[in-house]
């Protein structure tokens, strides 16, 4: 009896996620059709940011951890994709490998992270974000040193016609990656696994008393989010055409943090908003800087200043803490967001 109810519920989640992905995919398909090449590229940027933010959001929302090391996971994915592309791999296996390699790197980091709390976790992941990209300098022959690696742009399949723009093809690739992430994370979050993770987040002690292996769920959430970041990094490599350590500075991880905080830490819809912010903000601030004829120093740094302000203001306005915020959002968001999501994605 119970088994059947559960099976139906599961099928419900699976079905909903399939519908969600298909609807979102169709919307994106029509969207890319009407966008300029430049906008297509922005959409591609947004899609790979979304992968990372969605992972981070599930990490924060499901296990209450934050990571400042996901910029480094993006680097892992990006370098994997670049190396394999140079070795002649096709696009799909190359991106799959980017995710898998990051998953493997994520396991020891996740195990370590599950044993750390608060500022210790933040400091350790921060050190990871700074330490890992330095490897590219240590082994210049393998990773191209400061200049990094170039990666051949993907060619649109001939079946799409000879005039199909490269940018739109890149947008498609990145969006398909993002939809895969949505599909996987949505199902995890709405499964028993997600429930266990949330139980751990809400009260570690109670969760461990009721027999949940706290560390294991946190590790799982961490590895999952690292994998999403690795795929995001692989997509970044494919979209931008080069991979260099300069693309993964400490600032990237902090920018991602700002994106997650803006998105409200915990909902996949929030990750869409966060990704949109990360892509559009530099444009807006450049426009603002131009219209006030500010110097280039100012306009370059304006988006960063906004990220900083976002983080500060969010914390001052949110004294109950992220946990409380997550729970409030979770209550309001998880339930209603399922049917809202396709429409919102358009916005």
């Amino acid at each position, binding site marked *: 009896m119970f088994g059947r109810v559960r099976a139906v519920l599961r099928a419900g989640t699976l079905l909903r996620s399939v519908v969600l992905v298909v609807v979102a995919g169709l919307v994106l398909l029509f969207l890319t059709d009407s966008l300029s090449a430049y906008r297509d590229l922005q959409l591609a940027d947004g899609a790979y940011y979304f992968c990372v933010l969605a992972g981070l959001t599930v990490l924060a929302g499901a296990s209450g951890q934050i990571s400042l090391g996901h910029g480094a996971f993006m680097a892992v994915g990006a370098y994997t994709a670049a190396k394999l592309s140079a070795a002649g791999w096709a696009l799909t296996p190359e991106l799959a490998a980017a995710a898998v390699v990051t998953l493997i790197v994520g396991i020891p980091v996740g195990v370590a992270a599950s044993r750390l709390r*608060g500022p210790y976790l933040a400091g350790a992941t921060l050190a990871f974000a700074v330490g890992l990209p330095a490897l590219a300098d240590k082994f210049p022959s393998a990773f191209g040193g400061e200049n990094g690696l170039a990666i051949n742009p993907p060619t649109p399949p001939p079946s799409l016609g000879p005039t199909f723009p490269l940018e739109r093809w890149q947008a498609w690739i990145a969006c398909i990656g993002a939809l895969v992430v949505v599909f996987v994370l949505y199902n995890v979050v709405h499964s028993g696994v997600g429930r266990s993770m949330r139980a751990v987040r809400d009260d570690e002690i109670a969760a461990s008393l009721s027999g949940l292996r706290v560390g294991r769920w946190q590790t799982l959430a961490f590895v999952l989010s690292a994998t999403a970041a690795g795929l995001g990094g692989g997509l970044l490599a494919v979209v931008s055409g080069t991979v260099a350590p300069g693309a993964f500075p400490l600032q990237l991880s902090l920018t991602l943090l700002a994106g997650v905080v803006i998105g409200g830490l915990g909902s996949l819809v929030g990750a869409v908003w966060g990704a949109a912010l990360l892509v559009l903000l530099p444009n807006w601030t450049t426009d603002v800087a131009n219209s006030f004829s500010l110097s280039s120093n100012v306009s370059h740094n304006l988006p960063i200043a906004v990220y*900083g302000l976002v983080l500060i203001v969010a914390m001052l306005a949110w004294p109950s803490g992220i946990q409380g915020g997550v729970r409030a959002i979770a209550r309001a968001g998880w339930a209603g967001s399922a049917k809202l999501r396709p429409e919102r994605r358009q916005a």
Partner: protein
Amino acid sequence: MTKFIDLTLNGISTGAIYAAVALALVLIWRSTRIVNFAQGAMLMFTTFIASAVLNGGGSYVLAFVVALAAGLALGGVIERVVVRPVENAPPLNAVILTLGLYTLLVAIAGMIWGNTPRSFPAAFSLRGYRVGGTNLLFTPNDTFTVLVVIAVAVALALLFRRTSLGLRMRASAFAPEVARLLGVRVGRMLTLGWALAAMTGALAGVLVAPSVFLGPNSFDPILIIGFVAAVLGGLDSPPGAVIGGVVLGLALSYVSGYEGSALVPLAALVILVVVLMVRPTGLFAATRERRV
């Protein structure tokens, strides 16, 4: 062998700087249970101010003093204005807030002074001492660095151990509510704690700037390394921070000398993880860490 001696000497002088950064982090952790991830940006900012003084024709001594004073003011203002509201919030709020501060300060510095790193002068000669016909990798400026850091560490120790102000500050850090019940104006003590910490950080900034150049992001590794040094020393113990700084300075100097400087941040990460996994209370902490 001479290489080993050189690396050791070099490790001591960089270790002194790490010790100052670690000390800055520990002072704040003790008083407010916050790891100040903005520290690296704060000391970057005060060093830029010192650089501006130098460019304006001021002497090195003036620039040095201005940097310390700016650190004092910056730390105090930041505590009062933005940190105070999150002091009693969950620890993650403070983490994100200080990271936001870091980001904001980096951006503001970039707006004012640009993102291209510039050079910053050293107080004394950067030519190594000559011993028995070879130049050591230890310069008069390194001597200055080590002596200044020792002087500040001793001054802080005296302040905390020997003065009634220090007693009030320690009481505020250990038991804020009890301290208030004894008439201690705890808020002021916390502000002062942040101010002193930021001043110590500012000192580190001026001392390290000649070797890393001065740019908005130049001090990111220093912050990470300072954090590792502080954790190594137990995060709660100022003497531990100093020892942690020197130990880490030596370790990273050897790594850099024998394996290349690119591995330094990674080595710091490895040390951090090992310490956190094996002995989270730090290697030198005498008292048990109060985990929050």
